[in-house]
């Protein structure tokens, strides 16, 4: 796992190979962090914190710095509780995000993830907008062993599909209802309002257990704008970071988590159905820093 291609390892190796900590070390660290999409603000903050620590402990051993970096990032990531709360019955999970981040794929994997724990799942295809989104979800639902509620006609109001999904979960005593929504850019206020409507409609029947915002690891600093908009309109309770199997490092999620106070809950690392895991700061940082 140490040589994960998305690890900062490569960028940091040169820096930790040196004998002592000097100015180039700091520059390399800064470059590596910016290159991992942490963003200039957070990078400055972390580097300043580390500089202070290094000065306090009077160390000039890069190995210490590496450990401190790991600790700092881990501490920052672990500030929030990443546990999914799915105790309600039915536990309704709403999945939101911009276009092409992997919402439908995530739902497929998530369905598999929870059926693996012996829970019954129904997915609602409330992405009635994009061509063939329903079929895509149906394929994933089948692979994940979940039931599916489809819209009765093309272009049906997504809120009504969501309603029917929850209704079916309640009627048939299904444990978990996962609702897929159409991808929408956070700048389209009409579409963002639609999310509010879906929420309201579901809440008429039962509480929503989790609203998961799916973020693509390749996203840059725009991820923060996405998160803020979705939190405002959809009441996001957790983040899902996808496409971590690529070369992108998704550092922006740390900024998102810190600025918004919404924890990262799940991590997706591939196109296989088993490639979704819970978020553990320790493992994440281990892979990132090496």
């Amino acid at each position, binding site marked *: 796992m140490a040589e994960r*291609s998305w690890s900062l390892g490569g960028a940091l190796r040169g820096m930790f190979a040196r004998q002592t900590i000097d100015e180039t070390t700091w520059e390399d660290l800064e*470059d590596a962090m*910016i*290159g*991992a*999409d942490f*963003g*200039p603000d957070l990078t400055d903050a972390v580097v300043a914190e580390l500089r202070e620590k290094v000065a306090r402990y009077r160390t000039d051993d890069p190995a210490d710095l590496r450990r401190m970096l790991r600790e700092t990032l881990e501490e920052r990531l672990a500030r929030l509780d990443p546990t999914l709360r799915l105790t309600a019955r039915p536990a309704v999970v709403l999945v939101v995000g*911009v*276009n*092409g*981040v*992997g919402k439908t794929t995530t739902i497929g994997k998530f369905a598999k993830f929870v059926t693996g724990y012996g829970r019954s799942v129904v997915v609602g295809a409330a992405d009635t*907008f*994009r*061509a*063939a*989104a329903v*079929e*895509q979800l*149906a*394929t*994933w639902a089948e692979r994940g062993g979940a039931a599916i509620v489809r819209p009765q006609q093309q272009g049906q109001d997504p809120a009504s599909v969501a309603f029917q999904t929850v209704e079916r979960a309640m009627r048939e005593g299904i444990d978990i209802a996962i609702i897929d929504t159409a991808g929408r*850019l*956070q*700048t*389209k*206020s009409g579409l963002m309002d639609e999310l509010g409507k879906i929420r309201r409609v579901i809440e008429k029947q039962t509480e929503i257990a989790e609203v998961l915002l799916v973020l*693509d*690891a*390749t*996203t*840059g*600093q*725009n*991820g*923060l*704008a*996405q998160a803020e908009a979705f939190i405002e309109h959809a009441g996001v309770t957790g983040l899902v970071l996808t*496409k971590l*199997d*690529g*070369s*992108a*490092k998704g550092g*922006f999620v740390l900024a998102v988590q810190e600025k918004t106070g919404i924890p990262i809950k799940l991590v997706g690392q591939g*196109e296989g159905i088993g490639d979704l895991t819970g978020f553990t700061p320790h493992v994440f940082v281990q892979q990132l820093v090496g």
Partner: protein
Amino acid sequence: MAAFGTLSDRLAETFRNLRTRGKLSAADVDGTVREIRRALLDADVALDVVKSFTGRVRERALGDEVSKALNPAQQVVQIVNEELVTILGGQSRRLQFAKTPPTVIMLAGLQGAGKTTLAGKLAKHLKSEGHTPLLVAADLQRPNAVNQLQVVGEQAGATVFAPEPGNGVGDPVRVAKDAIKYARDRVHDVVIVDTAGRLGIDAELMKQASNIRKAVDPDEVLFVIDAMIGQDAVATAKAFQEGVDFTGVVLSKLDGDARGGAALSVASVTGRPILFASTGESLDDFEPFHPDRMASRILDLGDILTLIEQAQKAFDEDEAKKVAEKFATDTFTLEDFLAQMQQLKNMGSIKGMLGMLPGAKGMREQLDNFDEREITRTEAIIQSMTPQERRTPKLLNGSRRLRIARGAGTTVTEVNALVNRFEQAAKMMKTVAKGGVPQVPGMGPIPGAGYAGKPKQQQAKKKSRSGNPAKRAAENAALAAGKPAGGSSGGGSGFGLGAAGAQNATPSEEELSALQRFLGR
């Protein structure tokens, strides 16, 4: 992001203390370069690109052209803008068609970049230019990608070649190969091959993409990349360049608020031009890429040119002259008012247009609160009047107003408000048309009106005279936001810059006045 203010604002801040000294020291320039670096990093431009870029800017900023300039901040931003445009490819390139049809266009990119949607948009675009595109479903990986392409193809009115069901079944290389033969047989002159999304580091899938490329020998390989992508853009672009050696880039999801620094990274690292920008979910949201506009966007300077272009598209010059004359002669009626409003609606979303103003991103909230339906409501009121009433609003007595309110499904108060607004507007327009400065009751001091005579009149002209309060508020806010930037003496400017930055594309006096007139509605 807007939260940090625009680059020009920040630079103006940096330069504020320097005004009196008039000359820039190396330390001042370094401060400036740091700001630029930050702005570019915030816009997700890749670090390496930022470094070499700021290096060049620093060099030029220390040169004579800046230290001798009256306004160093503007001068520096202009340099930045020029350099950006240079990297982004100077001018837009068109698709290259094959000498002997079919022209083969292959699409490649990461998962979720928007390839399939783009295939549809491209097909529709080509169809509108008289081509007969064939869409090829060579994405056999993602569940129901084939299906999606079929639906998209149907919407675009293009034939779809999909011999394999997909979902992991079938060989995309074979499909692509067969497609060329199929296209030749059925006389399709363009073949668009949609391939599966793949990661840059997935050697196996990259090999497959390269095999598809070999099999079909495309005239264009378009690399589709999400405008929201971060630092990874470089690694990905390099991987795809090695893998499939793309000939051009398409930037997708530009309708979001990402600043799209990736465009700069990709263009700079690969040296390939950006051909198109994809700007929405409808198949028509597709346009040629304009480097100068993108530069402004990365710097958050607003997109005045697109705005003007859109305004001109919907704007009828003759009509405008007629209206101006009507104002002057006091024959402006509610009918004209209605016609104008409808013309305005033709231009599409007002929100979208306001968003293109420099600095407008900071006022998203106001934009969101602006209700487009307000126009429809006003329209309904006017349409509920008899032609005679529209021509002579003085006729409108109590009972007529009640009837109109009923007809429009609203209250008499609303009707009264509209008539009042119209009368005020007509009066104001008349003053303006005669060259005076209108007094706007109840609007408070005009922002920036403290300037001497000349800018004042301009400002007054630009002031929104919209028939409805929400729009008026939003437009005025937009003007207020845009104005300090554009003002003659205000530090780093948005308007001024956009114009200064792209010499050739500078909006002419005429265009600007067209814009002003449009905004003045």
